[in-house]
């Protein structure tokens, strides 16, 4: 799987290259600035671009802006945005085009290399991956509102993991329950929230997020 990496700090960039290579990814470009990133994304057309939000030249949110621009030019271009901090505002902007194939994670998540590699593959496959911290904030914001209060605690957990973009199998593994139980919980959640249940993981995530964003 071909990836482009954009990270301005040398140590982190090299670390990412090493980690991804070890997990069988092919790093076709590792760049250190926003203009280089845009060129790499548009020329290399990688299976996924891994982008740090803060990049030169302005050291603000150049990485995010380039990612959004590239996706406007190449709709659905898979991009996984990494950052030292997560903002719901940025998550909204990444999700706004409803095209999927997008991820937004804290840099800390790299520590869990298996999960990180799985997240990259999910994004490359058109999935949506959101950092648990973003999801948690979303859930907190709506925790007191109907009909979220009608969910059981277990359904709550399943909803949060669905919003992060995890598959039924991953949720089952995480919560130590069977996949069938997850399906049942999902059906319950979707019924209570008046959402249409879909087998497609990505459509499911988008439905949940759209609900939480509303």
């Amino acid at each position: 799987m071909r990836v482009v990496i954009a990270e301005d700090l040398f140590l982190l960039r090299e670390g990412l290259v090493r980690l991804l290579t070890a997990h069988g990814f092919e790093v076709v470009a590792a760049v250190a600035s926003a203009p280089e990133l845009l060129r790499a994304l548009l020329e290399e057309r990688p299976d996924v671009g891994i982008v740090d939000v803060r990049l030169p030249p302005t050291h603000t949110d150049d990485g995010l802006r380039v990612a959004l621009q590239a996706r406007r030019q190449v709709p659905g271009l898979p991009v996984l945005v990494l950052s030292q901090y997560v903002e719901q505002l940025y998550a909204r902007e990444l999700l706004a085009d409803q095209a999927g194939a997008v991820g937004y994670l804290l840099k800390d998540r790299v520590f869990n290399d298996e999960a990180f590699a799985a997240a990259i593959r999910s994004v490359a496959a058109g999935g949506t991956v959101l950092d648990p911290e973003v999801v948690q904030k979303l859930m907190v914001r709506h925790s007191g509102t109907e009909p979220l209060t009608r969910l059981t605690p277990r359904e709550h957990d399943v909803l949060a993991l669905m919003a992060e973009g995890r598959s039924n199998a991953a949720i089952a593994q995480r919560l130590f329950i069977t996949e069938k139980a997850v399906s049942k919980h999902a059906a319950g959640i979707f019924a209570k929230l008046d959402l249409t249940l879909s087998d497609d993981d990505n459509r499911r995530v988008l439905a949940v997020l759209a609900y939480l964003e509303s």
Partner: protein
Amino acid sequence: MLFAIVLLLTIGCIAFVLVREAQRAPRPDGLRGRIRDRGWGLLLLPVAMSAAVMAGGAHGLIPAELGLATLAIVFAPKLAAKLVPYGVLALAVFGIHLANTYRHGNTSGVQYLFVHAVSHGATELVLAEAALLFVTGLWLLLRLDSPGAGPVRALTARWLGSGRRGISGVQALLLIPVVGLTIQLLGPGDWFGWQAIDGLDVALGDLTLLGGALVLIFRSRVWAATLAAAGLLVLGAYGWVITVFWPAVPGFAYGFSDLHNSPVPAPLWTDALEGSLLLAAGLWLAPRVMRHHLTDLPDPELAARARHLTQRVQTLTQTRHDAVDTAAAELRRIERDLHDGAQARLVALGMSLQAAQRLFPTNPEAALALVAEAKESSSLALIELRDLVRGIYPPVLADRGLADAIRALALDTPLPVELDLDLAREVELPVASAVYFSVAEALANVTKHAGARTVRITLSHGAGMLRAQITDDGSGGADPALGSGLAGVERRLATFDGILAVSSPPGGPTILVIEVPCALSSQKISSC
């Protein structure tokens, strides 16, 4: 009679307006506001009317004087207010003069306030009215000079005031002997057609002059001394004029040579001596007064500017002090957070790795557990550093500016937040940071205490101000004096000359308004 009723009604109406308007603190718009701005100057109308009537003029004089007074009140309200006490005093002096006329058997048919005096019998009434006017005039003079202070305090403040440097109290008091000598010269005897007057009238005349002198001394030490210097020079020169050109005659008084009742004229050299002494005193005083007038030009605009600047320096000293304090406290907090947080985590991480390294050959499983622990430590250190960075300067504010940072704040608030952000231009970072943290504090308060269902934030530029308003429908009762949070916001904003206004009645709603001026004294931190 008709005139008396009109006068009474006019004064009554004006007094009513003044008293009513003085009770209402905010200045109303429209006619009432304009009337209140004119204030005491309105009294110029009855004064002008009285003067016109006393001058005996129904022939166009009354409308002319009333017209002039109205013009003054409308276009120069401050001047009108200043003229009022002098007008009243002038009416009083005229009353005394009138009484003298009657005493000497003349009739004039003048309407003096409420007395239509045609004969000798009206003298006492006219004098009583004149005395009343005199007291009123003096009171108004002091009252307008120092509004709010009593006459005694106003006098003391004037006398002790340091604004009249260069001219001492003694120099100003020289006006009294000068006035005394003048009275003596002008008083008894036939002099340049002045009608000789006796008894009570003389006393009242002298009293008026002396009173005027005293008022002048207390009102303006400089002008009292100026008049004294001029008087000394004129009186001294007059002594020499008498000596040279004028043989001494009985019934004439100059200086201490009271010749009024003396059959033998005093020798001429006494006049010369007294004249010389007076001239010397005048020549001593004049340059001092002139120096004062030349060097210390009383420029009211300059004085107002000086006052404004003094106040500004005080404000800046205070806010700088607060800013330095706040910055120091922030640094101390950051230092403590780093020391107890990330630094400690890194030490633990190093120790875990060290132990893992030691255990690896003998007990790989235990070593692996320690490595996992080290990973956990680094995760926690990252979380703590992230929170710390947010507290120092929110990354989204650095990335996107104030409007998006407030959008991000709203998204992180567990309440529906309605936003109306209208920023045409970007705000300078220091001001943006202050406003951001103020809004953050307000939102935190709403979430924690208010029990609100919705919050509304508006942000806009207008009239040279950056303005943010946070409104919630919670229980109210927010008070900067109670919690340290809002007081901290006030201090933070004060550094930029910004203010926080809180309206939070019990039961809500709470409205917080933050205003920071765009044009600041320091170019570096002007916000828009």
